């Protein structure tokens, strides 16, 4: 993947707020990232860090109200997706950008058969006839590795196991040959062996179809195996971004470092005690004016309570939002 290629998707300064009774939740704050063609971008972060909200904001999939996308630009195909008219947006959704959701159990409509659900975007975006759509749907099912595709098209979601349902979701997302596929924790609800199957399938598909993928997960192991580049989110912000290898070798943000340490492994030496990150994730009640991680940070500086650190470039396509410079072991001088 050429480093300087024009990104297919370029997100700048995205802000999303939820209005709730008695206040607001600032779920996404000033998030910027880009996605190069053919690249697989991993997004990690703990639960509630704003991963899903970010992705759904891109395509206007959040219910408004309560959600409100306050600002930023999402450049895709030369257009700002936050400003285009409803028709263009719909054509983009499903047509040019595919979306796979976290929970395969509930993301399919239980009362329609799988074939119909796969054919729906085909007929809408590609203007296919019923027959053509059916043929393509069968191909798609075979593509995602569901045997006996002809038969299974007539089945209903409840007749599929979780792993197969997730494959169906992927088939739907891939239906119209999208340029970008956004997968929101597609394997979290699945077992390790099934997860391994899906990961394998994804890598294979990406190689064959050459699309760009955003893969959201909170499992660092998954990211390590599949992503080209990783974005780490915390408290509604991107706190670190780097090519995968670089990130695991050389984590810059204290949160990333802590995260890497807490995870036990099945191989290698076994620690007697697990590392932990003390404290709780922040409540995103208002526009942050300080570093969201400072309460749980072991290298917090005075400055962290006053200012929200910007993302500093540390070379190798790697940046981190921290006033503490891990390489020098002291405050960053700006």
């Amino acid at each position, binding site marked *: 993947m050429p480093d300087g290629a024009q990104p297919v998707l370029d997100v700048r300064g995205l802000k999303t707020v939820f209005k*709730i*009774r008695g206040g607001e939740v600032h779920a996404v704050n000033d998030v910027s990232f880009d996605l190069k063609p053919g690249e697989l971008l991993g997004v990690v972060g703990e639960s509630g860090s704003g991963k899903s909200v970010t992705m759904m904001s891109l395509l206007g999939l959040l219910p408004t109200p309560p959600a409100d996308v306050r600002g930023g630009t999402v450049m895709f195909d030369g257009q700002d997706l936050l400003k285009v008219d409803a028709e263009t947006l719909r054509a983009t959704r499903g047509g040019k950008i595919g979306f796979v959701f976290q929970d395969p159990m509930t993301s399919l409509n239980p009362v329609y058969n799988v074939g119909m659900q796969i054919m729906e975007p085909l007929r809408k975006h590609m203007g296919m006839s019923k027959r053509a759509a059916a043929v393509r749907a069968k191909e798609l099912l075979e593509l995602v590795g569901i045997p006996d595709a002809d038969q299974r098209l007539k089945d209903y979601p409840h007749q599929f196991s979780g792993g197969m349902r997730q494959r169906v979701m992927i088939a739907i997302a891939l239906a119209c040959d999208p340029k970008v596929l956004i997968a929101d924790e597609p394997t979290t609800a699945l077992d390790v062996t099934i997860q391994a199957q899906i990961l394998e399938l994804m890598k294979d598909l990406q190689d064959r179809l050459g699309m760009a993928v955003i893969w959201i997960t909170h499992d660092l192991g998954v990211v390590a195996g599949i992503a080209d580049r990783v974005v780490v989110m915390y408290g509604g912000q991107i706190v670190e971004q780097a090519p995968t290898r670089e990130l695991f070798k050389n984590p810059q943000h204290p949160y990333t470092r802590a995260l890497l340490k807490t995870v036990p492994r099945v191989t290698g030496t076994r620690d007697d005690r697990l590392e932990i990150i003390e404290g*709780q994730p922040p*409540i995103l009640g208002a526009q942050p004016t300080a570093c969201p991680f400072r309460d749980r940070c072991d290298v917090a500086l005075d400055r962290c309570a006053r200012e929200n650190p910007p993302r500093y470039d540390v070379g190798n396509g790697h940046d981190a939002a921290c006033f503490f410079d891990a390489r020098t072991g002291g405050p960053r001088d700006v």
Partner: protein
Amino acid sequence: MTDQSIDTRDSDVARNQWWDVWDQFKTHKGAVMGAGFFIFIVLAVYVGPYIWSIDPTYIDVRARNQGPTWAHPFGTDQLGRDMLARMMAGGQTSISVGLTAMALALFLGTLVGVLAGYFKRIDGLLMRLTDLFLALPLLPLLLVMVMLFRQPLSSSFGPETGIFILIVTAIGITSWMPTARIVRGDVLALKEREFVLAARSIGTRPGRMILRHVLPNVMSPIMVSATLGIATAIITESALSFLGLGFPPDFPTWGRLLFDATDFMQQHPERVMWPGLAISLTVLSVNYMGDGLRDALDPRIRGL
């Protein structure tokens, strides 16, 4: 998670919870207005007669069929009885019927629902019983019951109490089934919830299990049934009056007053208006109250 300092020394759990409920309830505008109006109505019909002390049965033949005047703000009926006093007397009956019948139906429904949902052995039996009651045609049954027991009851409890008991029972035992079904469904689902399993692993006895874990968690459907129940009971009573099987004609209830007044709709439109408004607004306020209460009783919504 902010550390609000909460006094842990001896804070009374129950009061604490109801306090929260109230705080949440307050945020629901419709519910507060509904509750306010309902309290107003209840006060008006129960306390009102002490202030407006005209006897609702007192006949003033000279003052028959009057429109609203200072002496009779709601006018008078065809015998010259004061409509305001009759509205208050009628409201006492209607609201009591509504509340009691609802309470009875809820009690039966919850009892059957909880027992059926909780004890697998009697589930089949109780559900067949519920089906049976559901398949009994209600209005006819009600009519037959009223026909059947009106006399014995009014002779042993007096005509008014007798018929009150009868109507409340009739409405109550013919309308508990939906509640039972809903509650059973919820209990079955609850039984699969881990906290019930947790309580079992502790060795909690069935009685306490039901009181502590099951009942509080089926509160919301019960609350909704309750608010609908009051409304249905008031309306059913008036339908019975219409069919000539409710309270005797000389005994005012809102339904009865409304029914009597429909004949006079053209001559004295205000006479249908009072009971009509009273019934509608009561039902409306109770429903809004129910909405708010359902939210308020749910700690998850409360906590947001």
